[in-house]
């Protein structure tokens, strides 16, 4: 296991070393330009974990424990690969390189994004989770245009709000652990019998849900992806968002059936799934459409986890992780697709076909990685209603992704859709990789013979065809669709927030009162009396 342990440490140590190198002026530009190599140990660690089983490491002196097990290794492999592929494209081209402070933000986000897969105690997890969220601000929000500043503000507000939910939830987890330990498996094992269980679970769901864009905490996602440059959007939507998914996988007590909470999460998940489709089809910016597709897909994952929590399915973590790994690759590649189509003057038919196949992979188009993900997740949606909803969600995805394909030729009309030349040139390879690399991971969750039976292929085909029909209908009534602003409910939230700012004036008045001498003197006396009264 020595190799595994070394790789586990290097998963965090390698990108951290690149970050440390930034403090030396002579090394800085090289460290930033070559940072796309930093996730290689993470990729290797994931591969070794997949081949040899889980490994972990405890360093009590550093208050740090790390662990990499099979379900998580699948998502880590996909995420590390995405960081490497997109990073290489973004940083190798000399003229198009992001400026240093953006590159540093990129690096910090990468450390956090890789770290959430391996951190195994509450405090380390909270640290890397914050790293995966907060520095990402710098990947898109330095532009002074009002739209970007607004997106940055909203992004930050949701990130901090999610952190607060999680901190509260983590506090309850730690308080319930009988031996005062903070290792995640220990605190989660103590959760089902914890007196704070019914307070901790909603906080965890809200905290991770904010990162995943679960309704009603979804508004930040389309807003910030629309403002984010293509390479950053690819890694954030692919790898970054999975911090929330991994959080749910790690922190939900999936071994103990909790029917009520499982069903609640499933309801939130399905609601998010269909909400994402419904709002997504009204969007014109292809990046916003992709963001709503992410919302919808994260809803599927939340629903799957909810069903698993209710029914105590031991395979759920692996299945959900495989689904998430597929989404890492496909969503990352789809954002690169936007950049590619914004860059090409003449588009080849073959490329359009490839783009549509990639898009429909999310709906489970047969023979794509997405079809494998749908086939694998099927056992989680056993039973009448859940199976029907899962079927309908695939049809909805097909609809949304066909809408995306239709909007793709207009990509050039929108801000932040240009992509570095290398990413454009290598796009066919990236897209093919995203379509078929999930085949390598599939043996961990299912059997090919089963997945390629005729009935399974037809199972996968029907929702896509249904989505196609819906898309035809949508095209007919496109001009009658309501106009929903990007960010949907968030816009109302912003209005309420602005109005609440007006109440700050009342605080000024209170301050003015207490800053007058008579008031301050009386307060002092009142405090004396109150304290004396409390002691009598």
């Amino acid at each position, binding site marked *: 296991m020595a190799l595994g342990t070394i790789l586990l440490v290097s998963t965090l140590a390698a990108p951290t070393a690149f970050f440390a190198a930034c403090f030396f002026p002579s090394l800085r530009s090289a460290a930033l330009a070559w940072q796309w190599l930093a996730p290689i140990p993470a990729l290797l660690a994931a591969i070794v974990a997949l081949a040899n089983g889980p490994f972990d490491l405890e360093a009590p002196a550093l208050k740090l424990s790390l662990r990499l097990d099979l379900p998580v290794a699948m998502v880590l492999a996909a995420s590390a690969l995405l960081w490497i592929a997109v990073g290489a494209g973004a940083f190798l081209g000399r003229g198009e390189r992001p400026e240093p402070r953006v590159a540093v933000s990129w690096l910090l986000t990468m450390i956090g994004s890789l770290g959430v897969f391996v951190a195994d105690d509450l405090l380390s997890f909270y640290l890397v989770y914050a790293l995966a969220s907060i520095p990402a601000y710098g990947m898109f929000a330095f532009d002074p245009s009002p739209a970007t500043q607004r997106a940055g503000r909203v992004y930050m507000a949701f990130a*901090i709000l999610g952190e607060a939910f999680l901190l509260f939830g983590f506090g309850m987890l730690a308080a319930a652990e009988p031996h005062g330990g903070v290792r995640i498996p220990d605190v989660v094992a103590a959760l089902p019998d914890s007196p704070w269980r019914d307070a901790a679970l909603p906080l965890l769901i809200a905290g991770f849900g904010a990162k995943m864009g679960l309704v009603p905490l979804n508004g930040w996602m389309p807003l910030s992806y629309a403002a984010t440059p293509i390479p950053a959007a690819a890694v954030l939507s692919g790898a970054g968002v999975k911090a929330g998914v991994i959080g749910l996988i790690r922190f939900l007590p999936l071994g103990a059936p909790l029917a009520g909470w499982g069903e609640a999460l499933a309801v939130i998940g399905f609601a998010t799934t269909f909400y994402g489709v419904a709002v997504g089809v009204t969007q014109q910016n292809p990046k916003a459409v992709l963001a709503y597709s992410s919302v919808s897909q994260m809803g599927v994952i939340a629903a799957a986890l909810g069903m698993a929590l209710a029914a105590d399915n031991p395979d759920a973590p692996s299945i959900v992780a495989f689904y998430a790994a597929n989404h890492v690759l496909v969503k990352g590649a789809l954002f690169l697709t936007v950049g590619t189509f914004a860059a090409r003057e003449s588009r080849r038919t073959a490329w359009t076909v490839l783009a549509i196949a990639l898009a429909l992979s999310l709906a489970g188009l047969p023979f794509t990685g997405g079809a494998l993900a749908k086939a694998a997740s099927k056992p989680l949606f056993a039973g009448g209603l859940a199976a029907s909803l899962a079927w309908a969600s695939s049809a909805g995805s097909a609809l949304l992704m066909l809408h995306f394909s239709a909007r793709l030729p207009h990509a050039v009309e929108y801000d932040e859709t240009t992509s570095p030349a290398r990413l454009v040139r290598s796009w066919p390879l990236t897209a093919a990789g995203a379509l078929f690399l999930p085949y390598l991971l599939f043996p961990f969750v299912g059997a090919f013979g089963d997945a390629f039976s005729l009935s399974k292929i037809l199972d996968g085909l029907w929702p896509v065809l249904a989505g196609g029909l819906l898309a035809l209908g949508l095209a007919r009534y496109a001009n009658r669709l309501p106009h929903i602003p990007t960010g949907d409910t968030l816009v109302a939230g912003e209005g309420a927030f602005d109005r609440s700012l007006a109440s700050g004036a009342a605080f000024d008045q209170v301050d003015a009162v207490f800053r007058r001498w008579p008031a301050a003197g009386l307060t002092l006396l009142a405090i004396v009396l109150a304290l004396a009264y409390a002691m009598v």
Partner: protein
Amino acid sequence: MTPTETTTPGGALLVLAILLPSVGILLSFALGSRAAERIALGSAAIALIVALAILAEVSRTGRPIVYAIAGLSPPLGIALRADGVSTVLLLTSALIVPAAGLYARAGFGTPSNARDSRKAFTFWIMLQAVSAALAIIFVSSDLFNLYVALELLTFAAVPLACVEGRAETFAAALRYLLFALFGSIFYLLGAALLYGAFGTLDIALLAQRMRPLPAVTAAAALMTAGLLAKTALFPLHLWLPPAHANAPPPASAVLSGLVVKGSFFLTVRLWFYVLPTLPAIGFDVILGALGSAAVMFGSVLALRQARLKLLIAYSTIAQIGYLFLIFPLGSGLHPWAADGWNGGLMQVLAHAFAKAAMFLAAGLLYESLGHDKIADFSGAARAMPMAFLTLGLAGLSLMGLPPSGGFAAKWLLLRASVSSGQWIWALVLLLGGLLAAGYVYRILAPALSDAAVVLKAPPRRTGEAIALTLAIVAVALGFAPESFFELLDIGRPALTTAGLP
């Protein structure tokens, strides 16, 4: 535990910690501002060594070190005593004072061709007086002795606040002085009542003789209220924003980072060391509630300030609020009280370093931009990356995001409030963190955006390095190992009095 405290090995270090700045003040008076600067910085360097030696001795023996002045133990004589908390606070003061001093050389230095200036003279003497007063407060175990130190602290802090000599700083300082005097009177009255009731003012003896008498009730209420006034706990904060926001940056750093902690520390001494056996049910809730109100009001008002220094001053009011959660969360013999105690003290340290760093960074911004209007910071981060990095790192601690001392404090307090079932304080911690994120965002976001900015003067490299170092310490506190918290527990009364009824 015997009531008589006799000198332990290393006890003389405590005398040194107090005498050093006092001798420095006398020498400075005699030799003028040029020498005062050198004496202040030199004695600060020695004070740091002394503080480290005390730390080494306390952590080596695992027990408080004691010095009985003139060999007389209380009640006849006066004892000096350094437990884990006082040791750590001594070190904090011994780090922040020289940092402020080195930073201040640019503004309060006396160039070789210039004559001695009254401004510089005042600054360097008062800086030493602050560190003398704090040293006495941290190691003294006699309530009258502490009164004298508290007065010295006020009389040193007020001139620091108005050393620039502008009209508005005088008004602010006068306000500060008057309110602090009210506080002193209340404290003194309370101390007199205790002396009347028990015939001693030694903390350990008082704790032993403590009985629930009416005089004790009155004394505790008066002394606490007086100390709250000096700590500027909301709603007794009227003097703080103008005094801290108008003082020169190194003075603000000391005032906000250290001086308010002096009277807070005395409040802790009073309730945890003198009165812990008293059946006072509601006082901790009152102090916690006032602290919570401070967190909310201070943070919201910080969000509304147009000037950076005022924002930072209101943020101090909010952060002081967190300190008072130590009373509901750190008292008693409950298993969670250790978390509350450690969390409250970690907040003292984290805020001391973070706030000092912020005021120094704000000073650098003022020097280079010629203003401290937040609305006009657009693009300034590109021109002054170090100053904004300092604000960002210190802000991380104020928000309570990891890795930082502020996060460690918040985590411990949060865990204590969940374990003890006192939910309300957990909500205060989280809401306060969100509001802090809001005001830190307000400083940083416009500065980080791409816009052109013209500097009046390039930032001072040494000033930047000092401010950044303080901010890094605030962040590094987040990595404090378990042994650090064991150090804080040395001499903690809940542990030593565990056998008492």
